[in-house]
């Protein structure tokens, strides 16, 4: 075989390989996009329905896309259904859950990350076990207990239940953030005469800020999406978050699907964006550090 022949052969094989890899990458992209579409299909349908005028909703058979795009539905939703009220309730519950959750979880997580004490192992175990419990399985107990406290159908009841069931994730993820701060920094402050609490407030807290933000967002989302407790406890519309309010609307004789979905999209899109922003930390927090 002459050198030119060899070179020629090399060339064609390289060409072949690059063609192969191009086919491979195009087919990967195609697969990826098809799979992605399967996941967002229900939400795309929601958008298409939300943009339809009332007359199109009851078309038989239905159209794939709106004939006229009614972007105004996203504003009219506040008049057509009590969406503003549902959103107010959701915001009150989620913001309060987030704030109380952080106030309770941060000191606990910090102490657990930095100290060795006899209650430490039992406390960590308790937190882990709580993480696996969902209020769904304990609904009767929760309902009866809250009736004793007169907290059925109140914001406070929903907030306290939400905070308690989300503490596990918060404590877990926060203490891993505190642990990642080098002890030497705190010791230096300590030696400089700062008190224990000052060290915590001036040094550790600012350094753990990304962890605190992540935890706050997670708690906020969990409370925002919570359904079963609110469905059971919030009997009056004045207290219902959107998850309960909107789900009850589907039981009515005439369902305004376009407005129902316009509201739904307003309620889920900001949450999806927030969720993506903390995605990096989610797996670690939810698996209690057993994966990453």
């Amino acid at each position, binding site marked *: 075989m002459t050198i030119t022949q060899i070179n020629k052969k090399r060339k064609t094989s390289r060409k072949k390989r690059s063609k192969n890899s191009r086919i491979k990458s195009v087919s990967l992209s195609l697969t990826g996009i098809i799979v992605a579409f399967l996941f967002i299909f229900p939400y795309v349908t929601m958008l298409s329905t939300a943009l339809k005028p009332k007359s199109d909703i009851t078309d038989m058979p239905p159209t794939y896309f709106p004939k006229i795009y009614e972007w105004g539905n996203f504003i009219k939703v506040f008049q057509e259904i009590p969406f503003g009220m549902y959103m107010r309730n959701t915001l009150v519950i989620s913001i309060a859950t987030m704030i109380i959750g952080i106030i309770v979880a941060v000191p606990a997580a910090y102490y657990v990350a930095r*100290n060795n004490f006899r209650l430490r192992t039992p406390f*960590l175990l308790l937190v882990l076990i709580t993480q696996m419990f969902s209020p769904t399985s304990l609904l*009767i107990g929760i309902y009866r207990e809250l009736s004793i406290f007169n907290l059925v159908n109140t914001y406070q009841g929903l907030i306290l239940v939400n905070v308690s069931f989300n503490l596990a994730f918060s404590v877990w993820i926060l203490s*891993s953030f505190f642990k990642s701060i080098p002890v030497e920094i705190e010791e230096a402050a300590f030696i400089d005469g700062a008190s224990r609490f000052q060290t915590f407030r001036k040094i550790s807290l600012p350094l753990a800020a990304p962890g605190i933000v992540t935890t706050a967002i997670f708690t906020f989302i969990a409370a925002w999406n919570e359904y079963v407790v609110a469905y059971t406890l919030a009997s009056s519309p004045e207290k219902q978050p959107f998850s309960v309010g909107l789900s009850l609307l*589907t039981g009515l004789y005439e369902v305004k699907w376009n407005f129902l979905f316009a509201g739904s999209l307003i309620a889920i899109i900001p949450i999806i964006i927030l969720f993506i922003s903390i995605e990096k930390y989610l*797996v670690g927090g939810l698996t209690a550090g057993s*994966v*990453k």
Partner: protein
Amino acid sequence: MSTKTFKKGSSFRSLPWIGPALLLIFIFVLWPVVELFLVSFREISVSGLIKGWAGTENYKALLDNSDLSGTLRRTAIWLVVVVTLTMALSLPLAQLMNANFRGRRFLRYSVIVPWAASLVITATSWKWILDPYFGIVTRIIVDLRIAEEPVDLLGDPRTSFIVLLAVGITVSLPFTSYVLLAGLQAIPKEIMEASLVDGASAWKGYWAITFPLLRPAFLVAAVINSVYVFNSFPIIWVMTKGGPAYETDTTTTFAYKVAFRDQDIGQSASLAVGNFFVILIFIMLFLKLSKWKELDQR
């Protein structure tokens, strides 16, 4: 961690720091557990007042409930089918999410959507999509000439549970495949490449090298997913309310119906106690698999 600055303190000194968290967990997580057990042995009036001890009457009533056996069977199917298929599908999905291609970010974000969005809303959307008259699935089926007439997949007991299983899988996949993706990303690139260079086929290399390294993540994802699936309420409740009749109930929705619709708190509590023990088994598995001791030992 040095022990110079922070000595092993007494538990008493820890209370200002962990006390509030402890208190909330005791009051709102553990107390309901105790209350649940107590109620299951009580005779409760329809209005919720305790009339007295019931012994094991509530448990007997539950066992005599003619809808129990079907519900238990369906719960087992629900758990096994959803978890098995979710895990089986999330392996290739995680692989795809980890591959290098144009549009990968779009795929990753799309997979997150059902995880981030309210389950109630997702379920409502599926209910609308499957509406026999106005739903888009009817349109697709007619356009593809699979059927001439509108089909009521959710109203027909032969198909409704299958539809619920499918939706259950699509909303479970994001969590499990993200856990597996994290597992894949933790595998050093050299090992992944070595598995291909050695001349082994991609398929062989995957099962010989990648999967064994992925096994811990796989098991943790499976156990946590099992608890989620077992406790799952909104999907079934929004789409069928466990109906027609009790045809699509699992123990979770069944317990809800018995307590809050049939007003039989005692009987429902006895079922919930059963559910509690099932969850406890998963917790034990989780504790065994998780590396909580690492955080414990520091």
